[in-house]
């Protein structure tokens, strides 16, 4: 399960909406608890691919997020990105390029009026949806 704070959830959706018509992406910082994680910090990133169908997180944004998470005593626990015209489900490219089997993969679909946000694990090429829970706490932001 992935638990996100209300603030993190709002930041994810805001960043994805702001990135339209291109895909938007970013990282999540938090704590790992076995197969679950609590995401308490959102790191909006730049999409170097500048594309409506691909994303490539600027590695400099990754570096800065990694350092900030370490300073806070947190880990990077996952990545989020948007699908502007398709459902919130990992594409074959998402599976092929998934960088870390311990991560949680958050997908935001902007296809419909209301953004749809879902979370997945991607391990050994297999996609497993997991519960995405929003906690009431405000987190570290």
């Amino acid at each position, binding site marked *: 399960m992935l638990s996100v704070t209300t603030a993190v959830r709002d930041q994810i959706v805001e960043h994805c909406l702001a990135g339209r018509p291109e895909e938007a*992406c970013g990282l999540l910082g938090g704590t790992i608890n076995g197969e679950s994680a609590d995401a308490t910090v959102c790191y909006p990133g730049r999409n170097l691919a500048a594309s409506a169908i*691909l*994303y490539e*997180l600027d590695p400099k944004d990754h570096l800065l997020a990694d350092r900030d998470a370490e300073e806070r005593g947190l880990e990077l626990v996952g990545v989020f990105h948007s699908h502007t015209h398709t459902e919130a489900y990992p594409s074959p490219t998402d599976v092929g390029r998934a*960088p*870390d089997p311990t991560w949680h993969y958050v997908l935001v679909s902007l296809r419909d009026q209301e953004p749809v946000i879902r979370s997945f694990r991607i391990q050994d090429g297999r996609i497993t949806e997991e519960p995405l829970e929003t906690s009431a706490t405000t987190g570290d932001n």
Partner: protein
Amino acid sequence: MAVIVRLPTVLRPHAGGERQVDAAGATVAEVMGDLIGRFPSLKDQLFESEASLRRFVNVYLNDDDIRYLGGLDAGVSDGDQLTILPAVAGG
């Protein structure tokens, strides 16, 4: 030169579970060589061939991508920080 190598979660199982390790060398290549000498299974994770890193591995020397510093030949100084990160991408 003694540098600190920071590892992403995906690589830590190959380095005894450590988040960061010390390594020595005068260039990025030598530091990597020292690291792999102690943690041999990192080699396939990091290198495509003897002389080139995997395409989806990003290496930062302090604040700079080593691709802009001369790649594996980039010189390192005492206390430098080498950060290894997986490329994060998808569609």
